[in-house]
């Protein structure tokens, strides 16, 4: 069974007389344990796609299935990590934030067990020394790590990440991206990650969804670069160039339905001949 499935999902926002199409006929399917990254120019509906999956928005048409069940409301099987640095509850400590989520998700669990599990998630994000601090005492990167630990503590089937590192400086951002990949390979949770950063997409994703302005899928690209991905790998440069071009095309609104009818591109990012590297 697919872990996540989008079936012709469209979302139209009606504000007064104006109608804004945020998503148009989005379809794709995610296998358990995969890392999918959604890229696209601003206004291409990346966040809307994630919010529909989280159950925070309702699609205008089409449906979203998670483990075969239709999404109708928010749920703990899909935990969202937001871009906002104030997503932690400021009146709870670092540990308190994780424990609060854990207790809601596992009401059957004993006190000691809960606390042990919370500590193990803190350890996973490398913050066990900060357990008793309040969020306002943390740096932006630390806050996002706590938010990831809190979301993982609930043991969701899918982790949703809406540009979680976009408000951080470049170095912190690169460090956290690497850390996220470690966590992913340890927990094997399915991840749907939204970003507008090409390199971040290439480093993280098994599959890249390129959204175009107007919310249609411009390309569905299996990312077959070998892991761990190196920015200075020649194949990486080729893939970056290709994704860059696709994103450039995605900037323009489709003329009529022409682009839409052609359907999304779906070739692997790097063809063996093009990269010159050894690729599967």
């Amino acid at each position: 069974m697919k872990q996540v499935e989008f079936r012709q999902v469209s979302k139209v926002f009606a504000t007064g007389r104006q109608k804004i199409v945020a998503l148009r006929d989005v379809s794709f399917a995610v296998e358990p344990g995969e890392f999918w990254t959604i890229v696209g120019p601003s206004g291409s509906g990346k966040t809307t796609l994630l919010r529909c999956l989280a159950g925070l928005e309702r699609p205008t048409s089409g449906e979203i299935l998670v483990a075969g069940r239709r999404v109708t409301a928010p749920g703990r099987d899909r935990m969202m990590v937001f871009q906002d640095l104030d997503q932690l509850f400021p009146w709870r400590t670092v540990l308190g934030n994780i424990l609060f989520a854990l207790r809601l998700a596992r009401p059957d669990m004993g006190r000691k067990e809960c606390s042990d599990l919370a500590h193990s998630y803190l350890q996973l994000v490398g913050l066990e020394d900060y357990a008793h601090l309040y969020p306002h005492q943390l740096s932006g990167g630390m806050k996002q790590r706590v938010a990831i630990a809190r979301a993982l503590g609930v043991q969701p089937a899918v982790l949703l990440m809406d540009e979680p590192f976009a408000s951080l400086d470049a170095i912190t951002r690169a460090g956290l991206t690497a850390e996220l990949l470690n966590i992913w390979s340890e927990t094997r949770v399915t991840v749907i990650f939204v970003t507008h950063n090409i390199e971040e997409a290439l480093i993280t994703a098994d599959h890249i969804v390129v959204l175009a302005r107007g919310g249609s899928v411009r390309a569905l690209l299996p990312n077959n670069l070998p892991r761990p991905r190196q920015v200075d790998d020649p194949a990486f440069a080729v893939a970056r160039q290709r994704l860059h071009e696709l994103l450039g095309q995605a900037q323009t609104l489709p003329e009529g339905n022409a682009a839409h009818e052609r359907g999304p591109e779906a070739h692997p990012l790097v063809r063996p001949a093009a990269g010159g590297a050894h690729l599967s």
Partner: protein
Amino acid sequence: MCLLALVWEFLARLHLWPELLFPPFSSVVASLVDEIAQGEIAGRTWYSLSLIGAGLSLAVLASFLACALAMMFPACADALSALMAVLHPLPAIAILPVLLLWFKTGRHSIVLLIVFSAFWPLTASIHAGLRSVPLTQIEVGKNLGLKGLSLVGNVMLPAALPAIIAGLRVGWARAWQASVAAEMVFGASGKDGGLGWFLYKKRYFLEVPAVFAGMLVIIAIGLLVENLLFKFLERHTIERWGMSSE
């Protein structure tokens, strides 16, 4: 504070004004000790505080109820802001004549006046606080499976705490004003009466040092509530959580 007392004492000793109208600080203190010894001040203070306690509790309940309705139904929010626009600028003491007509003199009228005076600032503050809870925190709550009252109790109220405390502060100050003012207008029925009535009565008998002594008591209570209650509350909640600058 000590300096203020010294200047007061000095000015009074210069006899620029009749001592009857401007008694020196020392005789005010003497009068205060005297009144405390007789037990009158304690009784009056207790009476005032009990009225304010009753009025303020009712006002807080009513405010939360009103805010709950306003948050749930947009029509109620509109009605509330319309009422607020009309009634908030009205000094509480101005509705006293109407209250007296409807409920006669006595405890009830004063308590109602306190409710009226504290309700509007409290409601304005709490409602604004609830509306400005960060949307992300609400969505995290929903994502964790919180709904309705559990969402309100676990996310909305703690997030709105800075505004709630600010509202309580203003509400408390207005309640004091209203109770003292109301008792000066019609005193109280029979032997009962609070600090406002104490001030009024002492003025009537020209016991001016006692009037000042009554004022000192009111100031002292204000300082105590501010420093022991509100500051304490803030230090252990919103200051600790880094929410106080908002």
